[in-house]
């Protein structure tokens, strides 16, 4: 058994798929892994995969052409999750799909463990991204830039940014994924880019605009007055809005600054 050890990202996994296939060891003789700290397996040959954007692009194009749009989306979303088995599952799904007469049917083949895992991970990541579409809270800075901090469980920032790029086309905004140290930056009327948070000048983030405090207070009091006391049900609230989201949300924060 040969284990291809790839970087924990979409490009890393896709390069791993390319290398594993290219090695011609046979699909049963190879395995993909992402997490580095995992216990090493006995009687296995480990190969480090060097992430290569060109190889990744090739695999992604093949998936899109041969397995269809739905599989393409599923792979992108599933790769954003943290599940340890996802790289191997994506590999198996691609192998299965390319051997089917109609590759686009592979997403329906839910009897298969790997396909089913990829599809479930896709929903998980989609759900996380969808939640963040609502839970992102922007703060207006002195220069009019909207700034937000999030700490998502999965790497959903690239899935989230297109939504806000459309919604706030005429705004300068920044979403900062603190857990992964990346930022999505959107200058007014142009395309959004993903950037390393450490490389950016973050000095100006400290100053809030004049009316920011007022709106935060208005929002907090709105959230309080909209609840019906007779129906009070914190358990239900916590099921729908788990505590891990609340650290970054204005209405649940005690202090003023992020």
């Amino acid at each position, binding site marked *: 058994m040969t284990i291809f050890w790839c970087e924990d990202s979409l490009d890393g996994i896709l390069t791993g798929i390319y290398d594993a296939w290219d090695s011609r060891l046979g699909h049963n003789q190879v395995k993909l892994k992402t997490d580095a700290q995992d216990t090493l397996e006995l009687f296995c040959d480990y190969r480090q995969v060097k992430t290569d954007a060109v190889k990744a692009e090739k695999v992604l194009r093949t998936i899109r052409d041969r397995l269809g749009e739905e599989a393409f989306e599923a792979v992108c979303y599933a790769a954003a999750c943290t599940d340890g088995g996802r790289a191997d599952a994506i590999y198996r799904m691609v192998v299965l799909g390319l051997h089917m007469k109609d590759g686009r*049917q592979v997403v*329906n*083949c*839910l*009897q298969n*463990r790997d396909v*089913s895992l990829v599809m*479930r991970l896709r929903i998980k990541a989609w759900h996380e991204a*969808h939640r963040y*579409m*609502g*839970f*992102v*809270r*922007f*703060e*207006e800075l002195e220069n009019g830039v*909207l700034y*937000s901090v999030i700490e998502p469980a999965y790497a959903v920032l690239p899935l989230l940014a297109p*939504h*806000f790029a*459309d*919604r*706030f*086309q*005429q*705004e300068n905004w920044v979403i900062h994924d603190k857990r992964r140290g990346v930022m999505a930056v959107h200058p007014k009327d142009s395309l959004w880019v993903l950037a390393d948070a450490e490389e950016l000048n973050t000095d100006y983030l400290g100053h809030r605009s004049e*009316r920011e405090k007022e*709106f935060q*207070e*208005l*929002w907090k*009091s*709105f*959230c*309080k*007055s*909209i*609840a*019906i*006391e*007779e*129906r*009070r*049900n*914190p*358990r*239900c*609230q916590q*099921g*729908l*809005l788990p505590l891990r989201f609340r650290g970054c*949300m*204005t*209405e649940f924060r005690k202090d003023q600054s992020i």
Partner: protein
Amino acid sequence: MQVRVPENLSLMEKLNILSDAAKYDVACTSSGTERSNTGKGVGNCVDAGICHSFSADGRCISLLKILFTNECIYNCRYCLNRASNDVPRAAFTPQEVCDLTMGFYRRNYIEGLFLSSGILKSPSYTMELLYQTLYKLRHEYGFGGYIHVKAIPGADPRLIEATGYLADRMSVNLELPTAEGLRKLAPSKSRTWILTPMRQVQNRMEENRNELALYRSAPRFVPAGQSTQMIIGATPENDYQIVSVAESLYQKFALKRVFYSAFVRVNEDSMLPALPGGPPLLREHRLYQADWLLRYYGFRASELLTEDKPNFNVLLDPKCDWALRHLEQFPVEINRADYMTLLRVPGIGVRSAQRIVKARRLGNVDFPDLKRMGVVLKRALYFITCRGRTMYPIRIEEDYITRNLLNVKERLPFGMDGQVTYRQLSLFDDQNFSMPPGA
């Protein structure tokens, strides 16, 4: 009548009063419209809708839900803002509503605006204020987000039509399920009076669909459809009547949603029922479950309840209840049954039924596969076979299945589960398993 709205309230005070007054309105959905940014203004709409927060009662906050004013000329007995109540009154100006909406929307607090109102001076006067607000928001501020607005019964039809072109969803409150209830608790309103604007919006939407088929860029009238809401438990209707009303609203008025709101006793009034156990939340929950069965699962109201058995089972959800009364139709073979039959199996929802139908084209489906597809096997296993076999040896027998289904704890959304685990055996129905009508 003198106007009791004080002039010099701050924005914060107004927001507190008018969001507090709007909280009994149920609809806070932002679904049904897909619209991208125009490139000039701010905002778009997502078809699935987005929840932005959840309040302490577990309801979602998606829209800035406010009344334009809580001043009202009517005196409906169930309403906090009725004319005879001594509550602080306030009114926004269109400018203030726009400022709040834009400020909140830019910070991604909300998905849009939900604007309702008490009746100031006359229905037409109030409707015109709502129209002005929406016009300002759409045209001066370039707001492209979601807007849900109330159509006010009795207002000039031209005003309602003009407002419909600016909003995504319109709703007229049915208030109470039957005409008698309305006569009793809201004597100044009548059923026909409420249904007139609802019919108007429905007809205009149909015409608009034809216009859009001809000209793609024709202005869109209420693209997310119309909805309504009614209060449950303030009047003595039974569940069968309520579900039948909802069904006829879906069929005859082409509504998108009917919302049910458990009655909260906010006024001391001899005509209102006392509710010692709090609002009838379980009943509301069962009605929503039935509502879903009507809209997505192909059930008819007469299948779920009958004149003889007019109320929902307290212990079992309506679908399990139906299945137990129709055991002759089970078990169902997963690999052969058609989609509509699969939908009727307890434990199989729309998503999992779709997955089953897709997956079985490529090979047989077995129980572990079903589990991975999201079927709730602990409920479904009594009603299905895979390749001719049941999961365990089971008896298709009502008592046996009921007993087993009751062992599986249903997840109820309001802390009713998990609180009482063991209790003294009793010979009497002191747990109120049979719900009296009006409870």
